[in-house]
């Protein structure tokens, strides 16, 4: 019996890496040839990443992970988006969280990368990302904050409640009146031209317009409660904080 079990374990261990190597070697080789070929443009690189991401495996995640911090912004965004499909690969959310924390994605110009990573973490319902996601609920970049709020609602973790309530209180005050430009200078390298110059007479949505509904939706998703204002949420939270348990 013991011999049979150990034989099986040994066989499975043997089955692991060499077989994977054989399977993934040509795929990785082809990806590298396409991605790193001389003169490859973003379109070529994105096509190569799309090709590789069809194969959901740890080895693929390991190959794609460096791109999240080292590639051009469009490639980083596409890579983050594609990793959201790796639901059964444990290393995918880990790599996404690492790249979210990375210095390489911390600047204003990299906001769109952070947004896409937050969306992917939400799709993956990555509980281990809770701390990082909740930190960004009150980010100064409105669209980053919105992506973090949406991710909180999808992942559903109790640690997000207080940052969400804090953000709700803030935008219900004067701070929520600040206008949000739909483009908001987040997109690098796009010449808007005269056609897209914002009309000075046009009223832009405020932070409150953009963030209030997502915050209420996220709080409702986590707590299964429904209130319309920060005051009501505060009252409920004060009563239930100590005994709160996440409902399935």
């Amino acid at each position, binding site marked *: 019996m013991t011999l049979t079990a150990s034989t099986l374990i040994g066989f499975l261990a043997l089955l692991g890496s060499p077989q994977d190597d054989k399977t993934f070697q040509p795929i990785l080789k082809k990806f590298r040839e396409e991605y790193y070929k001389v003169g490859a443009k973003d379109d070529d690189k994105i096509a190569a990443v799309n090709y590789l991401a069809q194969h959901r495996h740890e080895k693929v995640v390991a190959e794609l992970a460096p791109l999240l911090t080292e590639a051009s912004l469009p490639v980083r965004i596409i890579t983050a988006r594609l990793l959201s499909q790796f639901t059964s690969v444990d290393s995918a959310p880990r790599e996404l969280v690492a790249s979210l924390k990375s210095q390489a994605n911390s600047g204003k110009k990299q906001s769109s990368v952070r947004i896409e990573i937050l969306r992917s973490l939400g799709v993956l319902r990555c509980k281990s990302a809770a701390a990082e996601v909740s930190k960004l609920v009150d980010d100064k970049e409105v669209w980053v904050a919105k992506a973090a709020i949406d991710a909180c609602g999808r992942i559903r973790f109790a640690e997000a409640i207080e940052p969400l309530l804090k953000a709700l209180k803030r935008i219900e005050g004067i701070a929520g009146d600040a206008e949000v430009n739909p483009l908001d200078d987040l997109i690098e390298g*796009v010449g808007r031209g005269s056609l897209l110059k*914002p009309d000075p*007479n046009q009223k832009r949505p405020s932070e409150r317009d953009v963030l209030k509904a997502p915050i209420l939706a996220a709080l409702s998703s986590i707590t299964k409660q429904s209130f319309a204002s920060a005051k009501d949420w505060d009252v409920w939270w004060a009563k239930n904080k100590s005994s709160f348990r996440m409902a399935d």
Partner: protein
Amino acid sequence: MNTMEKSCPTTEALAGWLQGTLSPQERSHLASHLAACDECRRAVAIASTIDAPPAAPVNEILLSRVVAASRPRRLVPLAAAAAAVLALGLGFTLFHKKDTTSPIPPRVAERPAYVEPGPVKPVAKPEDPRVVTPSPVATLPGPEIPKNPTVTEPPKDPVKPLLTEKPPDKPPTPVPETVVEPKPVVHVAPPPVTTPADILSLAPVFVIDPVGDLWLRRDQAEAKAVSLEKAAYKDKFATRNGGAAFSLEARTSVMLEKGSEVAFWHAKTDDIYSLALDHGLVMLDTEGSSQKWQISFGKSKLDFMNLNGRLAVESRGDRMSALLLDGTAELKIGSMAKKAQIGQEVVFSSEGTVVEQKVETQKKLARLDELRPKVFTAFNSTFDEKNDEFQPYPYAVVAGKRALGPTGFYLQADALAATKAGEKNSLSSEIHLDRGFGVVTGMVIRFRYRTSLPNFSVKIGNYSADVSSRVKVGQWNDAEIPLGAFSFEGTPMLPTDPVENVRFAGSTDKKSGQLDIDGVQFLRRVR
């Protein structure tokens, strides 16, 4: 003119036109009508291919263009003038041939691909149910572009050169029923081996945006290829003094090297495009989509399944080579199937012998880039398209309606009243592309708009861009927006993102507003 007029002549009158039995006055009146009425001109053209006496002097390619002339054009007056002369010329030719006793030439009857499937119908066409004239509730009355005056005196035979158009170095007209190849030293592949059943399933292909020295040869007729040219399996595309390029049905970019001759056709049942190269070099670029291609050479066939990339096919006398320049494909030779390798040239003879060898691809890729069209149209809609005709860019209007203006149809937004207090009334229109495509770097959307709103948004999927109107109410203006300027909550639209719909929307405090859109195009400009 887009729809058949109520004053269209009777079937008998049109038959009289073809038979030459009309009085000079009736004939003159009918000629004027034909110049302006697409439906009647089309009916006459189709009828003439069935009933007419020998059409040997008539250029087959031009004849098909007359049939296709019912397709609406932006330049209505020019098209009307050209069509008038063509219709007159055709009618004149047929009229004078009427008395000949020659039998109907079989080649006309044998080529159903050139005959439009629609019935010969000189009776009034029912109104398009989608056509709605501008509603005063939805739109503010704006000054319409004045309708161009009817052409009373057509220019002096403006299309006559077309009828005699020949390439500068074209060999002398061959004796009928004798096939004379222009370059006999070069091996000419025999026509593809097809059974009658195969032929019936072969659809002609459409040429879009041809550039360079591209000619279309049909039997003994030859003409420079034009946009929306229709070519069947018997037709040959040829280049003479320089290279040429075109888009095959807005799906594949085709580049022909100088001195090439090639035929294309499409098996609709399996959605396979076929290519038979007589001589020269032809290169294909599937522009990011996966396609099935079959390369024919004598009895040999080579299948590239799921080709997504660039392929070069070159004739070398009694052999032909196919080379995947980049991208991916599955190669099928007879019963053998395998993954095509970039730079692995497959050389095959007409007898079926296949040899593979490694070759350099860079020079061919560089040449492909030189020849390829600098602008690639991924989508184009004028809203004048007709349901019964080939549409290279099929689409459906899912919000708003097609409305008729003096220069053709345009897309008029639906007006939606606010449902809650404090909300604004909104205007929106949307088209859904039947054949979506992926964004590539440098792609732009172009359209014309006419609006009473100070600004409106254009939305593609989740991504949107705002447009600030810079023109007076009622005036048409052109807009061009790079797709990179479209964003969704802080993230830009990126290469490979799908384009499957376009929505135009705006809001207004007023009771009514106007948001009209025309000429929507997606273009990729090569840097």
